[in-house]
């Protein structure tokens, strides 16, 4: 019975995908959206069932469905594992997924290809579930590439717009750079342990006779994979561009779920990373730098979704910082709270964009507080949460990251703290520019300002509530999440005992967040500052506004040389090679008239050569005997 339910959990969104691909156009938009949403809700309800079951008996559920890939030294089946970690992910992926599907019914209602949107969204959920529930790395890899595909399809959803298609292509290719790392990491592990099954790797690693250099290399390669999917340095540049997709996509894929896959993978393989401290240090440093760099770019962006995108990169950086310090539960905690408030923020920004008929530039917003009160309040709550204000969800999870960082390395703590202050600043900058002071758009837009319909506001309210209370899953003292995840983690993460030092750190973090808010308030409310037109931005601000020119650097360093090489090969080397080899051919076939006849395409001559050749050889062999 459980097997069937587990299959239903996995396949339900896939059924939704098939329905919407094949019949979506024939039914009404409402039905298309409803089926898309319901199939995800089914997965959510089943996740709750399995979760309850696991809570009761504490036994993970594992089945093997069928044989898949087989090579000389091992064989992999397509297996499902529902344990603490995968169920946790399932709960928020399908839960938030359901809300965002619901939201999309309204948000995408005017799009002629709404059924395709739901089809892709369902396909995404299916692959995300696959990624999470696999019992080996290769099944995770199916999901891993599958969600990448859906991300590609959804970023380029409005395919008539070529820059959007460019963004989609870029996301796919940059992810594939990471995927090659993932693949190589798998190869090394497979060569070492003759398996890719989590449990088997875990026991093999525990036996401790593997070459530690190779283990480190494997871990590093897997982390490169995580960098691609979770948008860490140096592979993060696709995520801001990915905002070309419809806003529900940004909320679901590029904030709450897919981009957390890297964190899921590192947590899943914690037994490997625990043994490779050098790689852990790299992860922590990459995470911290990413957090800081992305936050600093976020300070000056004027596109509401771009701010949130850089914020996501930055928050993911903080999660990797925690992972690198071995604090897996802390990272997971922040993944979950972040999913709540960032999904809410994205959906809220979608509500704003919807209300302004597609406007995303905050310089042309302002004063929306009164026209869109629900959007405003839910976003405000989420902003307080992400800024780390007591007692919202983000306060607890971010605070734990800072505490762990403080315990390990003061420099990392300082970097993370600065990133957090910046977060508070740019988020309040976003809120002030969007919702406060006077409206700066056109009269036409002003006339049409309105709150979004219920299907949009209900998910916002639910997510906002979660952004308030989400911290409860791991409050200091109860530490439910810590205990829950204990079975899947090897090294036990020490729960903080609240002492003086902890309270001081909390206080510092809170003061930092308030500094950021006050700073934003002074600039955008008191002074009423509105960011300048693009052309007027100068100096270092311009460098930041242009994202440190990283994209340009990559183009200069990789894309241009590659295309130049391609042109050189195509126009110069290929013809030259052709001539050389052709020259040999002509020589070999006899210079002069014979060769010329061949060149004239005389098939008779070919047949002649062919038959004579065989005859000559046979005669030779006959005589030789």
């Amino acid at each position: 019975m459980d097997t069937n339910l587990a299959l239903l959990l996995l396949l339900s969104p896939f059924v939704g995908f098939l329905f919407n691909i094949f019949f979506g156009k024939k039914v009404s938009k409402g039905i298309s959206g409803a089926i898309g949403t319901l199939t995800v809700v089914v997965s959510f309800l089943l996740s709750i069932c399995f979760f309850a079951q696991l809570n009761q008996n504490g036994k993970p559920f594992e089945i093997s469905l069928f044989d898949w890939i087989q090579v000389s030294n091992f064989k992999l089946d397509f297996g499902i594992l529902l344990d603490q970690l995968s169920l946790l992910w399932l709960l928020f992926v399908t839960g938030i997924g359901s809300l965002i599907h619901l939201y999309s019914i309204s948000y995408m209602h005017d799009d002629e290809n709404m059924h395709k949107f739901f089809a892709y969204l369902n396909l995404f959920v299916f692959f995300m579930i696959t990624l999470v529930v696999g019992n080996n790395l290769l099944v995770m890899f199916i999901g891993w590439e599958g969600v990448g595909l859906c991300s590609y399809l959804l970023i380029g959803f409005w395919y008539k717009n070529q820059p959007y298609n460019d963004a989609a292509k870029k996301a796919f290719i940059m992810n594939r750079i990471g995927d090659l790392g993932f693949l190589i990491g798998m190869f090394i592990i497979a060569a070492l342990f003759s398996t890719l099954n989590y449990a088997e790797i875990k026991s093999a690693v525990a036996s401790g006779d593997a070459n530690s250099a190779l283990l480190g290399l494997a871990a590093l390669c897997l982390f490169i994979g995580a960098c691609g999917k979770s948008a860490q340095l140096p592979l993060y540049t696709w995520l801001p561009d990915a905002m070309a997709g419809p806003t529900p996509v940004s909320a679901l894929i590029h904030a709450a779920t897919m981009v957390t896959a890297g964190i899921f993978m590192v947590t899943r393989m914690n037994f490997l990373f625990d043994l490779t401290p050098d790689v852990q240090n790299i992860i922590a440093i990459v995470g911290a730098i990413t957090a800081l760099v992305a936050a600093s770019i976020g300070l000056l962006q004027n596109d509401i979704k771009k701010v949130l995108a850089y914020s996501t990169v930055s928050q993911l950086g903080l999660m990797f910082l925690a992972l690198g310090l071995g604090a897996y539960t802390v990272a997971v905690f922040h993944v979950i709270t972040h999913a709540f408030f960032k999904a809410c923020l994205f959906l809220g920004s979608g509500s704003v964009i919807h209300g302004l008929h597609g406007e995303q530039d905050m310089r042309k917003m302002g004063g929306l507080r009164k026209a869109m009160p629900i959007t405003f309040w839910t976003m405000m709550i989420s902003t307080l949460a992400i800024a780390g204000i007591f007692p919202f969800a983000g306060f607890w999870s971010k605070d734990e990251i800072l505490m762990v960082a403080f315990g390990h390395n003061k420099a990392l703590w300082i970097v993370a703290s600065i990133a957090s202050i910046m977060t508070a600043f740019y988020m309040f900058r976003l809120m002030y520019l969007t919702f406060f002071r006077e409206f700066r758009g056109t009269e036409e837009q002003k006339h049409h300002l309105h709150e979004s319909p219920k299907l949009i506001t209900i998910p916002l309210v639910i997510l906002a509530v979660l952004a308030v209370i989400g911290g409860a899953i791991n409050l200091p003292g109860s530490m439910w999440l810590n205990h829950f995840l204990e079975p899947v983690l090897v090294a036990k993460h020490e729960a903080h005992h609240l002492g003086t030092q902890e309270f001081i750190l909390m206080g510092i973090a809170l003061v930092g967040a308030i500094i950021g808010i006050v700073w934003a308030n002074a600039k955008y409310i008191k002074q009423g500052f509105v960011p300048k037109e693009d052309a007027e931005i100068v100096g270092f601000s311009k460098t930041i506004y242009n994202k440190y020119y990283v994209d340009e650097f990559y183009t200069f360093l990789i894309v241009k040389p590659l295309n130049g090489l391609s042109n050189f090969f195509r126009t110069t080397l290929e013809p030259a090679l052709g001539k050389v080899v052709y020259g040999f051919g002509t020589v070999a076939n006899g210079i002069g008239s014979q060769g010329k006849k061949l060149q004239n395409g005389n098939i008779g001559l070919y047949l002649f050569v062919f038959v004579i050749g065989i005859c000559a050889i046979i005669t030779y062999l006959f005589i030789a005997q």
Partner: protein
Amino acid sequence: MDVTTLLILLLIGAVATLVSGDKLASKVALLFSLVAFGLSINLLLQFNQGTDIGFVSNWIANPKVALALKADGLSMAMVLLTTALTPLIILSSFGNSFNNSKNFYALVLFMAFAMVGTFLAADGLLYYIFWELALIPIYFIALIWGNGDVEERKKAVVKFFIYTLAGSLFMLVGFAYLYSKAGSFLLEDLYKLELSNQEQFWIFFAFFLAYAIKIPIIPFHTWQAKVYQKAPTVGTMLLSGIMLKMGLYSVIRWQLPIAPDAAKEYMPILIGLSIAGVIYGSIVALRQKDLKKLLAYSSLAHVGLIAAGCYTLTADGLNGAVYQMIAHGFVIVGLFFAAEVIFRRFETRKIDELGGIRSQASGFTSMFMILVLASVALPGTYNFVGEFTVLYSLSQVNIWFAVIGGTTIILGAYYMLKMFQNVMLGETNTKVFKDVNVSEAIVFVVIIGFLLFFGLYPKPINDLVNPAIKEILAVINR
């Protein structure tokens, strides 16, 4: 029933097509190719039950040449690939009209006959004859029914011809030498030869020229792109889907087991050269302006990886190479067909002149997209199974081979998605693009169905191929 039935059926099919007249030719050819496919499935069932479906009979007494046809899992896989793709290729041409179509379709079936023979022959000279026979129909198909300027086409096709001819002659000399040592052309006798290192080197090299040109491995590939571009799409499909696998198959069947020590000695160079082809093909594909040429270079990259798998001399490498041959055969036929479907409507293959098709033909777009994804080896497609196994085998030889060869998953995604974007996406094209008709849809659906089914459940192919590879490896490591 043995394999000769299949060969005779294909020959009869070719003759029947020839006499059926131009109007019926395509249908008669399709019918025979379908019967041939059914027959090979039947042969497979018998083979799986353990029945001997091989055939041996004396042919020429002196020098001793036998009509020896042997069927093991490897041969059966390649025969099935041929007989499965042939009806698809014939069906795919239903939207075209050819002058003298009876000759055209007779040649297609004749070519299938020669290729099946190549995959089954277990006697060196017989094999050589089939190998060369396969060249004649494709020569005419490309020359007579090809497209573009006649003179230019002639030049390209004849160049292809001279190459292959020159390479094959080296192989023939190699066989002559082997015969003088073994006193027989029989594969099993050649396997038993104890050749010195020097002898092995020369034999290996002679065979290598023939295969490197056919596969092709760089720098012997220069005939390829132009011929693929100029040939009618049916010809391109036959070449890329099946014929180049003759070269790869021959590496596994003839070259490696006969001269194993040479193969072992030159393994790093051979893998290096093959992988260089992967990178080179991918980079050249990036900036192609012609859709068929782009696919030709993508094919160059893919077969480079297959060749690399072969030269690892490991079970995974050889098995993976066979998987990838099958996967590539299907996907490249599908992709060339997509190019043909576009050409039928817009009469151009220039990527610059295309675009804006998606909004007019969602069915075609979806199918083309899936083929593109299969080509970049997305997990869930059979191409992933092949590519994963080959890359894994490379990583076992040297991790850097896997890293460099693995860049194909990045570069492949780059040129294929770029192509897809320029060809299919963007503002609606001013020209009208009608979505696929029934016969076109059938071809796509069958190919996609095959790739997705075996992508998730590759076991039947594993079970067919693995024992044969194991035997060949035993010979290589004798």
